[in-house]
């Protein structure tokens, strides 16, 4: 916990309960993310990580409990309103628009924006983070490799200039080299002032860059604390992270 913060957290989730059909996917999840932090939500398959993010961005609406963004409840909003409030969500599986070019994918990220100069500025910024994308702006999104698609998905979300970036398993299916690179970029984005909520199965990597962490297990927060502390605690690693 960040002690002594005076203002409301940027994002606060209170007693979140969610169902997938008859499956009780979230059983009262509470956590908060302070401005400027990287907070990671780790845990195994089916722990409820993706459900938590989908509930925040309102893709999933069958939930109870409250979600506060900058002190205001967002549970009544539609997904596009959540985005426009400043929450960008890079979903599981990246969901690149395969039939749009890379440039069009990025422009979709700035959909709410009509200021052409600002769009151009954000594009340039994206290209400095991901030079590889700049060489391929005319290429269709579907032709990129998994790692490149992940970069495009992050770059597209950054086009929204979000207050907080929700990342769902950015390392999934990537080669170790790409995983390293994507985590470096997440750190860089955070240094530039964007708050990050990172969902990861790769707990080791996530704890390496996060400030604080929550461990999800069977739809409940099983453990929380300082990321470095969790990383160095062997008992926790064995019990919750599945690392021997």
């Amino acid at each position, binding site marked *: 916990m960040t002690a002594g913060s005076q203002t409301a957290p940027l994002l606060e989730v209170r007693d979140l309960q969610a169902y997938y059909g008859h499956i009780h996917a979230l059983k009262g999840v509470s956590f908060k993310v302070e401005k400027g932090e990287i907070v990671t939500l780790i845990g195994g398959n089916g722990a409820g990580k993706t459900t938590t993010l989908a509930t925040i*961005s309102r*893709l999933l609406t069958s939930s109870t409990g409250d979600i506060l963004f900058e002190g205001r409840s967002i549970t009544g909003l*539609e*997904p*596009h309103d959540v*985005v*426009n409030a400043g929450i*960008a*969500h890079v*979903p599981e*599986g*990246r*969901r*690149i*628009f*395969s*039939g*749009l070019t890379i440039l*069009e994918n990025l*422009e*979709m*990220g700035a*959909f*709410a924006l009509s200021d052409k100069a600002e769009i151009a500025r954000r594009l340039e910024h994206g290209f400095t983070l991901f030079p590889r994308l700049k060489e391929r702006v005319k290429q269709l999104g*579907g032709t990129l490799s998994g790692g490149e698609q992940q970069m495009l998905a992050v770059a*597209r979300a950054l086009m*929204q200039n979000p207050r907080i970036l929700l990342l769902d398993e950015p390392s999934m299916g990537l080669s170790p080299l790409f995983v390293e690179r994507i985590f470096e970029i997440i750190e860089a984005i955070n240094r530039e002032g964007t708050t990050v909520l990172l969902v990861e199965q790769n707990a080791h990597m996530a704890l390496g860059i996060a400030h604080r962490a929550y461990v999800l297990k069977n739809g409940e927060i099983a453990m929380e604390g300082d990321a470095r502390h969790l990383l160095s605690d062997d008992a926790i690693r064995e019990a919750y992270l599945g690392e021997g």
Partner: protein
Amino acid sequence: MTYSDILMLLPVTLADGLVLGLVYATIALGYSMVYGVLGLINFAHSEIFMVGAIVSVEVMTYAFVGSDLHPIIQIAVAMVCAATVSGTLAVAAERIAYRPLRIRKAPFLAPLITAIGISLFLQDAVRFIESLFGQFIRPFPSIPFFDQQIPLTANDTISYKSVTILVIAGTMLLTLNYLVQHTKLGKAIRAVALDRKAASLMGVNVDRIIMITFLIGGILAGVAGVLYALQFGRVDPFTGFIPGLKAFTAAVLGGIGSIPGAMLGGVILGILEVLIGTYAPIFTNNVIGTEYKDIFAFGILIIILIFKPTGLLGRSTTEKV
């Protein structure tokens, strides 16, 4: 019939086929775009088209018979009226019938049945209203201007009517193509068609884009209705069925969901239909008459779909991870 006689018929046949094909294409776009964003075959679309045709006949009959206005302006006014009514109806169908089913996550057959229901409702509603005023088979007032001919080749002429239809339908198709490929709205429509959830994560109001897609499809169908009424001179509440089915076929032939595909499919189907209608009787000494043209057109469709089930320009469905 000599070889040169057969060749002589070709320019006129192709021109007629192109006229018919562009009308099919204009209707087909509505099927294809709605299918693109919703995965729904909007069978009510043929009736949206029929209503456009009826509106144009009524506008021409009650506002313009005996009028001194230039016939092109008359047609333009009829087009605006038909497009307004058809566009409104298409949006109403989405808001009243399809969206509630979507919100309640109804299984995919429910909107399909609903579409057929709307289709029957519109047919009978129009029949009822027209019957109140007399015959429900409505003739398009004859306008001598459109029967004038201009030379096509050394021996052939083409009517002002056909030229008007070619120009209007061609303009609609080019405008739509520009809208979809080169504007922000078009990008949003394509994004929604590719991945609705991802589009909403970009801040796109998906329901609004779906509504606009219905509106565009309805406007195109309304305009196609005017062109159809102008070309064939007579409409009734059941006029929509066969052209609607052909336009749907054209959309499938071109690859449903694909906009260039719907255009290509419409043109191919129109030309095939007229070619076969003209030449089948000639080559078979009238054993196979013009009335068999649909059998050949649909037969060719079946063959193409056997070898290319996604249609000519359709993408194979991309796997979603």
